[in-house]
């Protein structure tokens, strides 16, 4: 029996101890009419060998196309040590470290993760992860509204150049909390958000401003100016940042005069494979003043009975298992295993390693967009500095172009049209450090051919039939 260790003798002895005849007797308190008759729809069990065959075929089926999509999830090289250690049974199959003395491994990892994230973001404290970047932003929004004691307004400014899926996620999660999400348009030439646009959109009081850096288009925002503007209006500032980019870019804690108040984002670039979108890792950092509004688990350093240093979960009075309906969030299980991977990944790379990765990605993406813009009709969509990815205008419908490329096993980027119809035909491209010059050439050549075909086809030719 798969995963059941009992021998027949064991079962007999155990039933005798309990004082019943058959295992099924143990369910005698369940009204008989409720007992499940059959489980049509659940196939018969298969062996490990058989399911291996199925999964290998399916993994192969999806192939490994040449991918130039970024848009919030990035393919980076992950040192082999990261997952070989992360999947050790002691990390993989451990529970949440509520019994601190039996969980010092996990707890120290959490503490190190928090240390590294505060170092990267330049803020004071970090929690030990949330589900992903988008849900972390939702928690950041809720937290900011709770934490802002100067402004009672439940309005939060959310720029339109923030990742569309993040905007949708925030909307789903906060919709019943009486929060008003105000969309701020972006500058059509630069792709960034200006103070003028913010002024216009804000209208009156608001609790918080969200600043993505870089924004969804890869465009860099003038974070210092925006931060000071919001702080002048007693609003809190929430930075949404890419942790790899932070190796080179100014950390939220340094934005403007006082620094952003909260930073959150997607930890996937820190050692998580793309894996179809998850499990990833949301992070959330803030200034010390807001630590009691921070949702999620937090590890702290303390002493044991012998005065020796050790680690434990702390500030649990914020959490649902203690505070129940008064908790800062309902979150409970988070992304512990990914925290472990991210921590090991950062330890292996160090600050300089992360800088090199960031610089390599940036250089590669610039090279890619320069190459592609050699193709007639392809040009940058925005004129402001970008980091790590770039939005391009295409001379043909994006969906068609991407479909043609996909047929050649190239995933050419993220189609901006569905989320930004005003920009159509537009494409967001990205080339991380794992893409080679050959890869870039292959993309360039294929795109040039596809566009040549497409633009010719646009010429008014009468169908022959």
């Amino acid at each position: 029996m798969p995963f059941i260790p009992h021998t027949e003798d064991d079962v007999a002895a155990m039933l005798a101890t309990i004082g019943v005849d058959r295992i099924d007797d143990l369910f005698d308190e369940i009204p008989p009419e409720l007992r499940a008759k059959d489980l049509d729809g659940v196939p018969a069990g298969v062996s490990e060998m058989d399911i291996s065959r199925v999964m290998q075929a399916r993994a192969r089926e999806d192939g490994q196309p040449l991918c130039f999509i970024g848009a919030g999830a990035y393919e980076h090289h992950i040192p082999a040590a990261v997952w070989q250690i992360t999947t050790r049974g002691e990390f993989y199959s451990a529970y949440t470290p509520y019994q601190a003395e039996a969980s010092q491994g996990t707890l120290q990892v959490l503490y190190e993760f928090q240390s590294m994230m505060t170092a990267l973001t330049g803020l004071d404290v970090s929690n030990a992860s949330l589900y992903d970047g988008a849900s972390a932003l939702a928690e950041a929004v809720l937290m900011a509204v709770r934490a802002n004691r100067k402004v009672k307004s439940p309005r939060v400014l959310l720029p339109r150049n923030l990742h569309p899926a993040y905007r949708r996620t925030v909307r789903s999660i906060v919709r019943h909390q009486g929060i008003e999400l105000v969309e701020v348009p972006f500058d059509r030439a630069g792709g960034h958000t200006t103070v003028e646009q913010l002024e216009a959109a804000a209208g009156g009081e608001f609790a918080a401003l969200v600043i993505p850096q870089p924004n969804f288009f890869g465009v860099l925002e003038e974070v210092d100016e925006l931060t000071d503007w919001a702080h002048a209006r007693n609003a809190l500032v929430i930075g949404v940042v890419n942790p790899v980019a932070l190796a080179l870019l100014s950390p939220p804690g340094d934005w403007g005069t006082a620094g952003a108040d909260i930073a959150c984002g997607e930890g996937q670039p820190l050692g998580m494979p793309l894996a179809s979108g998850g499990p990833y890792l949301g992070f959330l950092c803030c200034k010390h003043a807001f630590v009691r509004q921070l949702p999620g688990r937090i590890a702290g350093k303390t002493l044991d009975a012998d005065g020796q240093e050790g680690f434990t979960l702390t500030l649990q009075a914020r959490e649902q298992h203690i505070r129940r309906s008064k908790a800062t969030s309902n979150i409970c299980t988070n992304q512990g295993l990914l925290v472990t991977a991210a921590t090991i990944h950062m330890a292996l790379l160090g600050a300089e390693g992360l800088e090199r990765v960031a610089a390599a990605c940036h250089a590669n993406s610039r090279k890619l967009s320069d190459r592609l813009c050699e193709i007639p009709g392809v040009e940058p969509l925005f004129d402001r500095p970008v980091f790590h990815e770039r939005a391009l205008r295409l001379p043909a419908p994006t969906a068609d172009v991407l479909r043609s490329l996909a047929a050649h096993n190239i995933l050419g980027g993220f189609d901006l049209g569905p989320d930004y119809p005003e920009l159509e035909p537009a494409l967001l491209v990205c080339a991380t450090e794992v893409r080679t010059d050959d890869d870039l050439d292959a993309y360039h050549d294929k795109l040039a051919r596809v566009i040549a075909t497409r633009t010719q086809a646009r010429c008014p030719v009468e169908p022959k039939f």
Partner: protein
Amino acid sequence: RPGRRATAQAPLQAPIPESTQAPGARSDADGLPAALRRKRRAALPEVSELQAVRHYTRLSQKNFSIDTHFYPLGSCTMKYNPRACNSLASLPGFLARHPAAPESHSQGIMACLFELQEMLKAVTGMHGVSLAPAAGAQGELAGVMMIRAYHDARGDTDRREILVPDAAHGTNPASAIMAGFDVREIPTGADGDVDIDALRRAVGPQTAGIMLTNPSTVGVFDRNIQAIAHTVHDAGGLLYYDGANLNAILGKVRPGDMGFDVIHMNLHKTFSTPHGGGGPGAGPVGVSKRLEPYLPVPLVVRDGDEYHWQAEGDRPDSIGRLTAFGGNMGILLRAYIYARMLGAEGMRRVADYSALNANYLMARLRTAGFQLAYPERRASHEFIVTLKHEAKNFGVNTMDFAKRLLDYGYHAPTTYFPLLVPECLLIEPTETEDKESLDGFVDAMTTIRAEAEQQPQLLKEAPHRLPVRRLDDVRAARHLDLAWRPAESG
């Protein structure tokens, strides 16, 4: 202890392991305006690969885990996480797929997700399933949001109250609040079942629904579930099933057949995906027909031989998206693999043997003189021992017991939950432990009680054999030290 924080304490000027260098990368990242650039290098660890490997390998050894210890942690279903699930979900083709890859390059994984949706429907008796929620608590939130969306869509907007038994998981009320509901507690009767009279008094036109775990957190199957369902439904409310304890009845009783309208499942419990030191989980939700329009996106649908995503545009009434990219896909794959290996028969066996282990362990502990919280009831997959006599007679509390168990190589059961039982140990052995483990646990419990009588100090100062002695939680909260900082800055 040597090695601690060795990582971050290493000098910053240390060279980076070249194995992780991106060659050709220049640190003069062209085109980045100076004003937007970082001024000081982040204080990350600067260590060699061996130092990092050794540090984290040794850290891992300080953990208890299923792979090393018996973990009878009630309500958490700490059972064996099959290694095959890990290796097959980690096949390069699955790891490499970008979340925005087109459907043409996603049919393999979509087939797995679709089949998982179907299997979860079948085993829970629900009409529709969404795999989107990233964990149980997010599944709960999605569930209550669907209840809200349902009432709102019918214009029934005064239903603003969610009923929650006092024994419920803390996430239940917390999730209800996040969905904008008020919470009213319903007491548990002396026999462990919900106090049905109190429930009848509580329902009314303000009732949006009730959140229930069945078997409940006190480890018994609520025999009045049908009456509860009628009561709530008759009042116009919906029934929410907290799937935390689904392991107890997997394939034996289906929440849909009990009358539940919406359910979340904890795949890291019932479907054995790893707990990972606190996640990632996955909290799919299942719904009855009337709630189907509100399921969170994305969903996978099948059209002939092809699979398609359904997102916001395809499902206008959906409560929406809960994470950017649709959920913890790698965890869903693990659950899929596990479910396929079990099959229908294996799922029933989960309930059979988790009930057998729980009832055996309960019987043995009772015989050994421990007091059960609900001695007249069958255990589901878990049960409660109350140490109130030991606390009174020997001056040791449940936490002392728990810490001493660690010394004997057993992870402690869940302590002080549910709150309504004093000096409570909630014990869940799961179906993957063998009789020897259970017998060893009984021996340890018996020994510890003798120690409590003869040398209570031994318990109060426990643990003695772990990497650290008992940790000072109060100090941790008072003198907050939540991050290491380089010496110069603090």
